[in-house]
Every structure is written in C-alpha cells, then in structure tokens.
C-alpha cells in the first residue's frame, strides 16, 4: 500500500486566463476579472485514472484542497488530515504538507504551479518525493508531469518508478508581472520517473542510473580541467558531482569557483565572480541546464551574468547534463539578458553527458 499525500491549490492557474501572469496574492483580483478555478478539474483527470489502482491510500485536505476532487473521481480510500479556512493560501499548502510529513507519506501529489511546488518543497525537501499535476500559470520547475494523464501513469506505477532530481524554481511574481522573468533555483526535489530504456552515455541501461552517469561526467571533467585555469561552476546536482569528485563540498543551489583543484570561492555572487576573473587569463564556466525547460543561462545561474560569460568567452562555456535529463529536453534555452551574447551560442551546443562523450543539442534564444 502506497500512501500518497494529495493536495490541490484550488486557485492555481486562475491568474493566467485573465492576464495576471500568476495568482499569488491576487485571487480576489482574478475572481473579479472573471477567472474560474480549474485546478480541481485537472486533478480529477489524474484521479479518475487511478480508480483501478487498489494499493493506493490518499491523505488529503478538506474541500477544494483535495477531498472534492477525490470524491468526484469516485475514489474512496482517503482520509482528510487537514482543514483550511475559507480562502486557501500558501500557508495552508505548507501546513498540509507538514501534516503529510508527520503522517509519513511515500509521495506528495499536488496540483498547482511553480508557487505550489515551492511551498511543498519548503516542507518536503529531498526527503519526500513530489510530483505535480500541471495547473499553474508558470511551470518552470521540473517536478511536473507532462499532463494529468502522465501523472496518473507515474502514480499507478510507483512501485516500478525510479527517482530523479528535478529543480524547483522560484519565480518573482511581482517582477514577472512587471515584465521581468526573474527565476531562481529554489531547490532540487526528488521526482518519480518511469523506468524505461534510458540511453545513458555509453550504453542503454534497463534502469536509469543517473548517479553512475554523474560520476562519469565528473571523472571526465576532472581529466580535462587545466592547471592554471579558473573554473566557475554553476548550480545543480550534476555540477555538484564534479566538485564532490574533486574533494570539495559544492553549494548545491549556488555558484562555486575552483582553481588548481582548490576551492577559491563558495556561493559566489556576480560581483565576486567579476572580481575573481578580473586578472585571470583563462576562465572557464561549467554549467548544467536548469528547470523543466532546460535553461543554460538566465535561470538559476544568474550570478553567471553576461559580463562574467564574456570574461570566459563563449568557447569556454562547458555544458554538462545526464542523458536522463537531456532526453526530456528537446532544445536548450539561453536567455542571459544579453541577446547578442545569446546569439553567439549559435544553433546547437555540445553537452558533455558521460566519460569522453557528448551530445549535440539544439539551442533556442
């Protein structure tokens, strides 16, 4: 029997249809503009497909935060463990996640957008896997299934599913409404993925073994890192593996700097990077695509600004990623904030994906 924490952010996505670019703190305005909640319906589409799965037990919240969708879908094996006030809020999401955590769930299934993902991750962390049914305005995080049906397949096959890392993104909604997409890496969650034939660098493995590939990438990077060169290493678990291989602890969500195998700076901001690179002759940047959309610059690695990239030179940007990650990303995105720099990346880029092996991926900017 699998215990699933199930939560719906009933207002998720409402801001989108009425041009609010997000619903955080704007539910009233969204309603006034005529927005109707639809997250519950989307959640129902997932749940309806789970009617035949006998070994699932849901822990949920009262009313529109979960219970309504479960009953409407004809599911009976659930228990209400949290009740919110009249108007639900981010605090309710976090509080419900807290109760799930206490009760011990195998996974939290939520229906919402980036904001909901962030709230749940802040409680679940990397301890409890999470999976999103997409219903929000913005979904830059990697924790969402492609659609409600795909979410159902993952839940139904949870026994056979493996877990993989996926970024949770933090979008500044105020700035976003003002026209600036300021997406930061909030955390790296664990998300189920169907074990299938995944082409991993050198071979096709029966099961995704992402850690093995990260190790391969790290080993190769260690071999090609040159003495005397300064290495700026971006956020993520693949880059983390590289720094760990070199014997240091990596700032998972931040940017670290290495030279001659030694850690020069941890969690460096843009100013630090500019200062450190000022007198360096040979600067290199190692980054990994961030988020569901596969951004290599502009999301989650903002410290590595256009000015920093120019210090290194576009030729010295080394992109690394596991084949698991690459198989879901058809093209990589570059949005550094400097369109001229973005164009310099050209139509495609080499992504190191194993020991002495790379993939050629299309780039969009």
């Amino acid at each position, binding site marked *: 029997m699998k215990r699933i924490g199930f939560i719906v952010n009933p207002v998720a996505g409402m801001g989108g249809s009425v041009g609010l670019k997000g619903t955080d703190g704007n539910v009233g305005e969204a309603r006034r503009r005529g927005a109707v909640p639809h997250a519950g319906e989307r959640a129902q589409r997932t749940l309806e497909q789970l009617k035949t799965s006998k070994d699932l037990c849901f822990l949920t919240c009262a009313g529109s935060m979960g219970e309504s969708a479960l009953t409407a879908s004809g599911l009976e094996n659930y228990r209400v463990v949290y009740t919110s006030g009249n108007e639900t809020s981010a605090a309710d999401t976090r509080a419900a996640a807290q109760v799930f955590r206490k009760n011990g769930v195998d996974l939290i299934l939520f229906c919402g957008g980036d904001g909901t993902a962030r709230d749940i991750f802040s409680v679940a962390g990397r301890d409890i896997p999470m999976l999103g049914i997409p219903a929000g305005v913005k979904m830059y995080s990697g924790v969402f299934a492609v659609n409600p049906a795909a979410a159902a397949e993952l839940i139904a096959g949870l026994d056979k599913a493996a877990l993989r890392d996926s970024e949770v993104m933090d979008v500044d909604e105020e700035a976003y409404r003002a026209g600036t997409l300021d997406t930061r890496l909030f955390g790296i969650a664990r998300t189920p993925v169907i074990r299938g034939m995944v082409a991993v660098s050198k071979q096709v*493995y029966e099961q995704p073994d992402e850690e093995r590939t990260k190790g391969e990438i790290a080993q190769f990077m260690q071999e*090609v890192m*040159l003495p005397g060169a300064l290495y700026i290493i971006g956020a993520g678990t693949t880059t983390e593996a590289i720094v760990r291989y070199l014997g240091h602890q990596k700032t998972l969500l931040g940017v670290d700097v290495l030279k001659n195998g030694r850690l020069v700076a941890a969690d460096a901001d843009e100013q630090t990077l500019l200062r450190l690179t000022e007198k360096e002759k040979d600067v290199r940047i190692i980054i990994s695509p961030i988020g569901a959309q596969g951004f290599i610059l502009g999301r989650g690695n903002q410290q590595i600004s256009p000015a920093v990239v120019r210090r290194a030179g576009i030729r010295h940007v080394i992109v690394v990623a596991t084949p698991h990650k*690459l198989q879901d990303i058809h093209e990589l995105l570059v949005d550094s904030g400097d369109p001229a720099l973005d164009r310099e990346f050209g139509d495609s880029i080499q992504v190191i*994906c194993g*020991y*002495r*092996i790379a993939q*050629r991926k299309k780039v969009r900017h």
Partner: protein
Amino acid sequence: MYIIVQDNHCTMQTKILLDEEQMPKRWYNVQADLPTPLDPPLHPATHEPVGPDDLKAIFPMELIRQEVTTDRYIDIPAEVQDVLRLWRPSPLYRAFRLEKLLKTPAKIYYKWEGVSPAGSHKTNTSVPQAYYNMKAGIERIATETGAGQWGSALAFATMLYDLECTVYMVRSSYTQKPYRKSMMQVWGAECIPSPSTKTKSGAAVLEKDPETPGALGIAISEAVEDAATHDNTNYALGSVLNHVCLHQTIIGQECREQLAMVDDYPDVVIGCVGGGSNFGGIGFPFAGDKMTGKHKDVDIIGVEPASCPTLTKGAYMYDFGDVAGLTPMLKMFTLGHDFVPPSIHAGGLRYHGDSPIVSRLVHDGVMRAISCHQSEAFEAGQIFSRTEGIIVAPETSHAVRCAIDEALKCKKTGEEKTILFNCSGHGNFDMSAYDAYYAGKLADYEYPDELIKEAIGRIPKIQ
C-alpha cells in the same frame, strides 16, 4: 546515360549485373601499390615487430601470409568462389528515384551487398576465413561481434565448412538485438554475451563492474584469449586487419567492371567506416587506380559516426586492437583502446581504432574521412528507403548521408559527378532503431575532441 532500346521505347537500366563467370577470381592487395610499406604490427609486450610465428597461435598460415604480402593479386580458391556465387556478383544499382527526388545532375550508383545470406558484406571475408581455417585442420573458431552482423556472417561460413563457432557478443547488443543471435543459432553457432566468465579478461571486467554493458574491445579480448588457450581453436576478425579488407576488395573490383559496362567511372566513392573493411572493400581498388596514376582525381570518402570519429579526430599512432591489450599493436588512427564508444544504433561503427591500411591512406591523403550525427544518418536512411525501397542498416545510412550530400553539392554547382557508394547491408533487424528515430529519441552523441585535445597531456597515455 546507358539506354536500352526495347520494344520501341527507351528503358533506363536500373540494375547493372555481371554474369557469374565475370566474378573476380582474385583479390586486389592495395599494399602492392603503397609508395612505402606499412608500419609493421608490434608485439604487445616487447614492442618488436611481430613475426608469423607470433600469430600462429590464433590464425592459419595462409591468412598470416595474406596479412603481410605485397603481391598485387591473390587468387580466390575455387571452393571459396563456389560459395561466393550463392550471392555474387552482387548488383550495382543506379539510384534514379533518389536522383529525381534530390533534383541533382549527379549520377548516383550503389553497390548492394545486402543480398548475401547474412544480409551484409561481412560474408565476403567470413567464407574465406572459415575455409583457410578448415584447410589448416582447425576445428573451432572464436570471434566477437558488436551489432551481430559479423557474428552471423561467421556462423554461416563455419557451418559450410563444418567448423564449430563461438561468438562473444557485446552484452548490450545481445539483449537489444535478439534476432541476430537467433540467426547464429540457426547456423549452428554458440553465442555468449560478453563480458563472460568463460575467459580471464571477461571475468576481470565483470569483477570490476558487474553492470557493464560490454564493448567491442572487451569482446575481442575474450575471443582472442579463447583462441590462444585452446589448441583446436583459432580467432577470426570481421574488420580492421589487412587480410579482411583484402577479401572485401571483390566489392570494388566488381563495381569497376559494372561501371565500365555503362562507360562510367566514379568521381566520388563512399563507404561507412567502423573498422574499415567495407570502406576498404569498395575503396581500395579505386585508391590503387589513384596511386598508380590511372585516375588521379577520384575522391574516396569514409563516413564515420560523430560519436566515434576515429579517422577525423583520432591520433595516428600505435595502439592495441582490444581493451585488455592482448592483440599486437597496430599503427592506426585511434581514440585510445580504453575508449568505450557510446551506444549508437550503428553498433558496427563503434570501434576505437581503424584498419591500418585505411588509416595510412587517409593519413597520406589518398582517401579522406568525414563524420555525421546519427539523426542525420537516419534521415538519409529514410530518404533512401522512400525512394529506392531498401531499408538500410544504421551503419550503411552514414554512407547514404554522404552520397546525398555530395549529390546536393552537385545540384548547387551543376556538376554531373558520378557518385558510387557501398550499400553494405540491410536494416531489417534494426527496426527498433528506426522506431527510436521516429519517436525523436535518437540522441546525437559526439566526441568532445576539443576538451580532450586541450587536456591531452593529462589524459592517461595510450600505452
């Protein structure tokens, strides 16, 4: 254009066929026309040139002689010719439909080697190799196979001469390509997933990494060890070695005859390259014409996968032929014998090194090499199947890609070049690869040569 007038209407000739008695009676040895001899293979331990005695443990004397001889022609034994006639001479096609689709002024010809029982050019050498082993009193042959083409070709040949056959098949292919394994069974061979515990080299790899998917270099080590440790057993290789490429020259010789029948001679000759035997097979007779001054301008192009770009990105140096370092060291283009190429669907092109003769000719500029990504190759394979009908092997699709690109260049320049390529095998057992292509799941693997070159001093030396 060659035209046959028939019943008052003109028919363009699609197939150019030789009669059975026109099948070449001799193999052409390009070593005879090299300006200076090849660098000799070196003993793996002493680094001294290997003599015939060093190879006697695993090869019959006649093949050792063919490996080193500089005689221009070597007679094909009558008993071998009898078998080759089961499918040879193979047809040469004019790709009218492909030309029409491309709207190219170029003439495209392809040599169709998929007519052999095993479905590829590999039987051209498996038959003589099995024959010479039988003549030498050998009872069993051990070999390796990557994609299964070679293993099935040798299984077919050993059956004809009543020899036992053990095939070490790269584990990932063994599970991915069950039908190649089934073919070997039909022809009576034993097929073992590699690495296995049957050999010391296989067991060593398994102990280090029980989950390993295997690699061609490991399977070679196992087959060589098997042959070296059993008196009644010899080893056979499906590509790379001089005598293997020699047996394949029947392809290029037939092409030259067939083109002469329509008063043509190629401006461009193309083959895909893994170990180099199908490319050498079609290319060496034309390389000979080039070196002897008969046709100085013929452009001979080998096409390799971007993920395993031995000729285009490798170093020209002495290296082992296998992972364990059991084989003699050969002077060739190599990515390092410890390089395990990624799992691309053109499994037959995944080899770290290359034929020493092909390497030498590329190094000297007599032939040249290019590389392409696997999705580009599959796209070309699809175009070919939808015009000429044949579904080519993923390996072969690399040659098709180059032929199409050369024809498109002619479209731009207006040149009416004659393009010839080796259509080395069918892809009827590779449909899962085509499925992956249509599902958009083919990753375009490539070799990060710039990073490696920059750091070359820090990468463990090939030794």
